[in-house]
């Protein structure tokens, strides 16, 4: 994909990464998170697949990480953006069906809800689980 076009069309800013040190070829920070579905569509048109969706706790909010990858060349691309706790993000299930479980897992672990997700549920943790375990503030329940 013409990465230049991607940067021009969306509110993305390039982060310097090297494949040898980090394992991804390109990384971008997305400013307006509403643009995510359109970015995913642009990747899909170029034949990319969604490698994974994950997040981490920055201490004052969450950072989302979307990894896109393509079969025919080494071109793993990361898209980051910041959100606050309990924030809502647009779902990608309409574009990549694999996002269904990826997003459910992020919800399960971090409490991020996805707008338009068909079946957002606790994927791995048991029923009746309280809180979101991968938040740094999470404490195991007292007996």
């Amino acid at each position, binding site marked *: 994909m013409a990465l230049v076009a991607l940067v021009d069309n969306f509110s993305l800013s390039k982060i310097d990464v090297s494949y*040898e*040190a*980090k*394992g*991804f070829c390109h990384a971008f920070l997305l400013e307006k998170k509403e643009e995510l579905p359109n970015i995913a569509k642009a990747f*899909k048109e170029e*034949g*990319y*697949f*969604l*490698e*994974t969706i*994950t997040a*981490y*706790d920055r201490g004052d909010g969450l950072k989302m*990480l979307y*990894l896109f990858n393509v*079969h*025919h*060349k*080494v071109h*793993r691309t990361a898209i980051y953006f910041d959100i606050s706790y309990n924030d809502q993000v647009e779902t990608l299930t309409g574009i*990549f*069906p*694999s996002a*269904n*479980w990826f997003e459910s897992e992020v919800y399960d*672990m971090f409490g991020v809800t996805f707008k338009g997700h068909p079946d957002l549920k*606790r*994927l*791995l*943790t*048991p029923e009746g689980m309280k809180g979101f*375990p*991968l938040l740094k503030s999470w404490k195991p329940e007292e007996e």
Partner: protein
Amino acid sequence: MDTVKEIKKDFFINMGPQHPSTHGVLRVVLNVEGERVLSSETVLGYAHRGVEKMAESKTYVQMMPVMDRFDYVSSMLFEWGYVGAMERALGIKIPERAEYIRVIMGELNRIASHLLWVGAFLLDLGAFTPFLWVFDARERIMDMFEEVTGQRMTNNYFRVGGVKDDLTPQFMKMLDEFLKMIRERMKDTEELIESIIFLERVKDIGFITKEDVVNYSLTGPVARGSGVSYDLRKNEPYSVYDKIDFEVPLGEKGDCYDRYKVRMKEVIQSVRIVEQALNLLPEGPYAEKAPKVIKLPEGEYYNAVETSRGLLGVYLQSDGSTKPARFKLRDPAFSNLSILDKLLPGNKISDVVAILGSIDVVIPEIDR
């Protein structure tokens, strides 16, 4: 006629969590009408151990043996992913001998994993003998692992900077004997397996198209069975795979038979890789000196390797301390299994076992 329609109702069958063909604790809720599956729902989490949370309170070294306990049938390939991520972070270049030892052990592990899969798949379909045939071959690999690593499974053999121990003369002897018999054994096994009954059961069911491969992020033999040539050893060469000549077997139609065939061919390709790696194996140290207490520089690291089920990504985020701030696995079987609910509707209950088996899932890896 109307009364018949009223009586004919769909109902639910709970397949699992304890079911012989799910190979672990996986639950599939089937909505069936007679013998036909109308829809299904895969329920995960029965083997969830919260490893990603646990990693926050374990040091990098303490996480090493945990890596074996995800995909316990090809554990060294998982170690490789984790060790590789740390080597990226520390900028360690490992000795060439260690690279070749890793390739040999990794490929033997891939053979062992595929052999186990063939045996278990046939067992699911009701054939018992092939299981014994492939287990004899697999047992030899387990013996070799025991000789070098001290363990048959959960080996904990890879280290930052190389491997734990050098290959022994006894191992070389055992490997030589194994390489002499495996081609013949695979040929015999294939002849034994591919009876008309087997072909009728696995051909033309569970089609996965090339579009599905992209849509559902499928990797490994499941993707290659549909004719998508994606193998990290070729497409994103790591270690010394770019110096070794091997092919990536592909299927054509993407049905259960193609996925079976791809794995059988991959065993032979892995044998070829081991043979070449043995010839290229240089003398020298088997490990680079690495710090005893591992502290990764602040930042995030991702390392992808090809396991026997597909693309494994290990994501590490470091805050500069001895413990990872975030540890995440992008595991192949998780994505591969997510297509199951799309494949099952319209099939008979007996085919559910064949389709689920052809995806090759290991539950502890999915639930983490």
